C-alpha cells in the first residue's frame, strides 16, 4: 500500500507535463506559416522556393514560340504575347491583350495577359509590387511562393513572381506567374494564371508562353 501512496503524485506530475506538451504543440501549430498564409496577410517576407513549383520559376528563360502558336501584339506595339493553339483571344482592359482556354464546365484552364506598364513597377521591386497590388486592389490572401530576378526575355530582362491567391468574388483559387519585363523602348507585364488545383498541368504551357514573350 505504501507503493500506491507514492505513485499518486507521480502520476499527477506525468499528467501535468503531458497536458502542457499537448498545449504547447497545439499553440505552435496554430502559429505556423501555413496558418498565417490563410489569415489574409500576404506573404511579404520574401521569396521562398518550396517544392518543385517554386523551383521552376528559376528555370524560366527566353525561348521562341513554336511555329504553330498564335500571337497578339499590344496596341502600343511594345510586346508580343504568344499562346498555344488551344487558347484563344479574350476581352480585357483597353491597351492590353489576353488569351484563355476554358474547360467543358466553362471554368478557366489557362489564362494569359499582357499589359503595358501602368504604375510604379520596377524590376527590383516587382514581386512585392505584384503581391501588394493583388492584395489591395483585387483579391484576398495572396501568398508569394517564389520570385526570380534577372530573367532573360526575348528583347529584354524581367523579374517574376510565383504566387497564389483567392478571389474576393466567387472565391476562386488561382496560381500565377507574373513578370515585369523591360525592353529597350517599352516595359510591360505578362501574367500566366490557372486554377491552383490544376497548376501542375497548367504551369508547363504557361511558362512556355511566358518564355516566348517578346518585348521591344
Amino acid at each position: 500500500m505504501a507503493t500506491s501512496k507514492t505513485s499518486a503524485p507521480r502520476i499527477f506530475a506525468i499528467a501535468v507535463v503531458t497536458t502542457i506538451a499537448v498545449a504547447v504543440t497545439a499553440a505552435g501549430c496554430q502559429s505556423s506559416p501555413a496558418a498565417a498564409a490563410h489569415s489574409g496577410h500576404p506573404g511579404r517576407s520574401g521569396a521562398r522556393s518550396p517544392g518543385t513549383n517554386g523551383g521552376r520559376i528559376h528555370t524560366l528563360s527566353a525561348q521562341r514560340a513554336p511555329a504553330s502558336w498564335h500571337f497578339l501584339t499590344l496596341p502600343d506595339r511594345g510586346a508580343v504575347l504568344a499562346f498555344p493553339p488551344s487558347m484563344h483571344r479574350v476581352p480585357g482592359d483597353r491597351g492590353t491583350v489576353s488569351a484563355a482556354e476554358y474547360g467543358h464546365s466553362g471554368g478557366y484552364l489557362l489564362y494569359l495577359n499582357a499589359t503595358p506598364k501602368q504604375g510604379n513597377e520596377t524590376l527590383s521591386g516587382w514581386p512585392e509590387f505584384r503581391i501588394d497590388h493583388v492584395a489591395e486592389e483585387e483579391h484576398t490572401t495572396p501568398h508569394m511562393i517564389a520570385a526570380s530576378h534577372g530573367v532573360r526575355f526575348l528583347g529584354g530582362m524581367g523579374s517574376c513572381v510565383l504566387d497564389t491567391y483567392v478571389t474576393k468574388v466567387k472565391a476562386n483559387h488561382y496560381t500565377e506567374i507574373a513578370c515585369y519585363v523591360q525592353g529597350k523602348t517599352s516595359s510591360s507585364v505578362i501574367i500566366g494564371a490557372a486554377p491552383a488545383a490544376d497548376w501542375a498541368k497548367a504551369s508547363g504551357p504557361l511558362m512556355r508562353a511566358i518564355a516566348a514573350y517578346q518585348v521591344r
Partner: protein
Amino acid sequence: MSSKLSRSLIGSLALIAALMAGCSSSHSTAHHSTHHSTAPAAGGNGGSGGGNGGGGIPQNNGGDHDGDNNGGPSDGDGNV
C-alpha cells in the same frame, strides 16, 4: 524526486519534442484548394480604359468589367 519519476518526466519531455517535430514538418506541406474556378459571367467589353481613380477596382462586376473583377484571374494592370 525518485528515479522513476525522473524517468517519467524525461519521457514526457521526449513526447514534447516528438510532437513539436511533427508540427514543424507540416509547415512545408503544400496547400491546394479545391475551389472551382469559373470564367467571368459577362466576359469583357474590351475594357473601359482610363479609370485610374486609384481607389482599387470595385468587385462584383465593377470597375472595368473585365474578368478579374468577376472571379477571373487577375490581369497585369498596375493601378487600375
